């Protein structure tokens, strides 16, 4: 695995480890975590990640507000969450230790950059005494390492100035952790060369720091053993590691190919959705046109224009952006044109917690427009699932000629998991035909085009795009007459059109409810979106403890599966963990009159398995 012979230390086998890298937001913790994840993925471990960063680009150095962290869990068995609590914390400064220590399991390992524990840094982090000396770390295994000094010494031979040398210390930490978990050296060396191509001194410095970290682990008599985590028995095939936002971008591109339509994205940058705009902007060779609009409204409006012209149109945003797009979505509902709105939910209201996840836009997706303007809603459950969810959202949009809301969140957006790559040829054909000719006749028997004559099966109207001879027609936000699409203020017609728009969405074909876990259980955990991993892990734990438990996870939230009411009515007790104040619970209660118990969390951090397990046990044991 590596060309450096390990020191004669016991090699201990572990089933899993949860490591959290934490440092200043300028310390490169995301990069370090990402790279450790990549090497582990290539070794065949299962893994899940949880990046956590402040909204500020560079919060004041050394302060709690500036701490950026990256948690990765690697295992030799299949996992669905990044772990409840880290067993290893790498803390690059006192602020990182202070912000993260409470998360670490008792007895966990704390690897520290001891050079950073200066009086000034301790003060900035709000420590009154040095935690390395005052007993704060009792109950943990702490490993103070002079990372700054050793890194400076290691890179000095390459002529790097001491101040610049500090920048390489994250690679020292990565080297050390790579040694601890017997990760190979070569992939990181290759990564450094590729990442910093053209900056030879930086490459040399980072390589030297990385090697120094690796060698330090091997030679310093600090660690009692190092560890091995065997590959996980995942289904065989080709894997890649993917974040939710990248999977969404790729899903959009795939949907374009599956529908044989050019892709248009109108977007205004907003955290945590901007990466989709970045990814798609780099895929112009797929015929993807991206438009960075002047505001959220123009982003949505441009998508409506592109859809009218026959493109597969998207707009990407987060909650506050959806609020701004609301009026335009009303128009899209009225025009009955296909488009997909991707909402990467974040904590709110208003600016709220821009980099933290929440699931509190469900009601807005469902009802957050003026008047009766129903929109289908699709929610992915894991980072890799974002790919399929994007295709599903496009399928519905195209087949039923409707705007669709895709609800992801900040957790799915930035975290990653191994993804067994799909066979492209097995993906569904979601193509639809444009209207090419007349679809009606006038009283003189001449062919005419009726832009609102519906397909009897789907209730979708024809999609006739500009450039098609004879089918010139006008659409608009004013209520239109059934079939002809002409302006109509007729009361009966309006009643009919409201009904037709609702009936079309209600009748969308979606897969039946899937019950995971024990299908014959009397207790069920109901969820949607990113809570899937934690619920799935909870179900496994409860089953191990001898409980029977079912798991229903909704991907289609509007319309819901046709059999959902019936399936849920079969359980005696249902709990529903959501990162909101009970929005799905309210929808389920209103629709099916079922007493679903809400389990809510809104602190910007995803549910842990332990939290859901506790709520489940309480519900199971309740009379």
């Amino acid at each position, binding site marked *: 695995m590596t060309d450096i012979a390990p020191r004669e230390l016991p090699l201990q086998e572990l089933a899993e480890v949860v490591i959290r890298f934490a440092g200043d937001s300028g310390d490169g913790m995301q990069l370090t975590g990402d790279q450790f994840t990549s090497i582990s993925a290539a070794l065949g471990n299962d893994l899940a990640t949880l990046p956590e960063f402040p909204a500020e680009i560079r919060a004041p150095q050394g302060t709690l507000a500036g701490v950026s962290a990256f948690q990765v869990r690697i295992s030799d068995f299949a996992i669905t969450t990044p772990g409840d609590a880290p067993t290893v914390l790498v803390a690059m400064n006192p602020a990182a230790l202070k912000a993260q220590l409470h998360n670490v399991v008792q007895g966990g390992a704390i690897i520290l950059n001891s050079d950073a524990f200066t009086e000034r840094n301790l003060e900035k982090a709000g420590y009154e005494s040095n935690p390395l000396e005052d007993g704060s770390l009792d109950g943990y295994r702490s490993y103070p390492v002079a990372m700054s000094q050793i890194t400076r010494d290691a890179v000095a031979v390459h002529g790097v100035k001491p101040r610049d040398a500090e920048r390489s210390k994250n690679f020292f930490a990565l080297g050390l952790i790579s040694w601890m978990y017997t990760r190979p050296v070569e992939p990181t060396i290759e990564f450094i060369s590729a990442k910093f191509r053209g900056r030879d001194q930086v490459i040399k410095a980072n390589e030297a720091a990385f090697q120094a970290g690796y060698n330090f682990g091997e030679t310093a008599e600090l660690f009692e053993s190092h560890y091995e985590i065997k590959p996980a028995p995942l289904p065989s095939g080709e894997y890649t590691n993917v974040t939710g936002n*990248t999977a969404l971008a790729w899903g959009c591109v795939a949907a374009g190919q599956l529908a044989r339509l050019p892709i248009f994205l109108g977007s205004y940058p907003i955290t945590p959705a901007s990466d989709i705009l970045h990814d798609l902007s780099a895929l112009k060779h797929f015929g993807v046109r991206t438009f960075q609009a002047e505001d959220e409204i123009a982003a949505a409006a441009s998508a409506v224009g592109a859809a009218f012209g026959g493109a597969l149109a998207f707009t990407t945003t987060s909650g506050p952006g959806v609020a701004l797009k609301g009026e335009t979505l009303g128009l899209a509902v009225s025009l009955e044109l296909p488009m997909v709105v991707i909402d990467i939910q974040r904590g709110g209201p208003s600016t709220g917690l821009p980099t933290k996840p929440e699931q509190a836009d469900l009601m807005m997706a469902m009802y957050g427009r003026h008047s009766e303007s129903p929109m289908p809603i699709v929610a992915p459950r894991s980072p890799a699932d974002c790919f399929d969810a994007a295709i599903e959202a496009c399928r519905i949009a195209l087949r039923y000629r409707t705007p669709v809301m895709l609800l992801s969140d900040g957790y799915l957006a930035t975290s990653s998991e191994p993804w067994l790559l799909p066979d492209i040829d097995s993906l569904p054909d979601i193509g639809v035909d444009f209207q090419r000719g007349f679809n009606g006749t006038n009283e003189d028997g001449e062919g005419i085009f009726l832009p609102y004559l519906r397909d009897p099966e789907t209730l979708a109207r024809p999609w006739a795009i500009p450039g098609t001879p004879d089918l010139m027609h006008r659409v608009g936000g004013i209520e239109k007459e059934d079939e002809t699409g002409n302006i109509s203020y007729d009361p009966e017609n309006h009643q009919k059109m409201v009904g037709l728009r609702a009936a079309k969405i209600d009748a969308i074909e979606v897969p039946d409810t899937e019950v995971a876990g024990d299908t014959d259980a009397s207790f069920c955990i109901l969820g949607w979106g990113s809570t899937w991993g934690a619920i799935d892990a909870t179900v496994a734990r409860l089953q191990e403890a001898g409980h029977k438990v079912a798991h229903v996870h909704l991907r289609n939230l509007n319309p819901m599966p046709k059999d959902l009411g019936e399936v849920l009515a079969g359980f005696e007790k249902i709990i529903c963990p959501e990162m909101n104040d009970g929005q799905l619970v309210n929808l389920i209660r209103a629709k099916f009159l079922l007493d679903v118990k809400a389990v809510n969390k809104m602190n910007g951090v995803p549910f842990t398995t332990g939290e859901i397990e506790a709520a489940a046990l309480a519900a199971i044991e309740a009379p």
Partner: protein
Amino acid sequence: MTDTPMRTKPADWATDQEVRWCPGCGDYSILTAMRMLMPELDVERENTVFISGIGCAARFPYYMNTYGMHGIHGRAPAIATGLAMARPDLDIWVVGGDGDMMSIGGNHLIHALRRNVNIKILLFNNMIYGLTKGQFSPTSEVGKVTKSSPMGSLDAPFNPVSVALGAEASFVARTHDMDREHMMEMFRRAHAHKGASIVEVFQNCNVFNDGAWEGITKKQNRNANLISLEHGKPIRFGADDELGVIIDNGVAKVASIADVGEAAVLVHDEGKTDPSTAFMLSRLARGPFEPTPVGVFRAVDRIEYATSSTSQLAMAHNEKGSGDLKSLLRSRGTWQV
């Protein structure tokens, strides 16, 4: 224009929808000018699209037998931008009033202009909100007494031509609803321009702001107050062309040619890269009671937005080949299990 007979007649460009503007509205003459112009442009109805926002003017698409969209208030330039990017092959017109374009949609208008999206924007300026029944608009004069400003409006008005020039517009023109030939000429020029073009049309709202433009557009006032800009010609007007526009200390002014001499009269150059002179001309009149220029203020070549977008797509295609989904999914490294 050629001698070959036109393939369509103005009536072919009309829909069967009843036109529902108030009788006597200036919009009728604009609609007629547009329908008369279309056969001459030798374009296909199916390749022509009218996009509008909300307001009286915004009903325009319903009356043109082309593709059309009556959108939402102010957003027409943004909708049209998406369409123009997705379909650079189309001929796209945007129609709106002063409320639609200068107020709620001001942001979209300036951005469409600076990007130079290939759309032709017609701004019907009647200096009043018509469809909402008579409130002051962003082009109304200060002190305008309306239902929402019983003691007079407080807001300084926009000058649409100045705004457009400030927003980097590559084609800016002005015309009025009392002169069909002039309207047709301005629309023709706007159509011929590659990129964003904007034409302000002085339009009479005979219900809520009747006669607002009379001071300059009424036949008997035109000699004194309407200045026709013609490229390459000295800017002269008056019953006997006795008046001219001069630049005095960086400001455009009206002067008697007898006083300043022929040589002092500004020769109009619509193709000037620098928009300063055009801007000075746009500031000549303080309101519709003083000599006011109409015609093409500015017409310069600048790369059109969708063309640039298309060439980036072609460049990416040349560099990376045709996008392959299989390789995309493998672009961040893979491993076998």
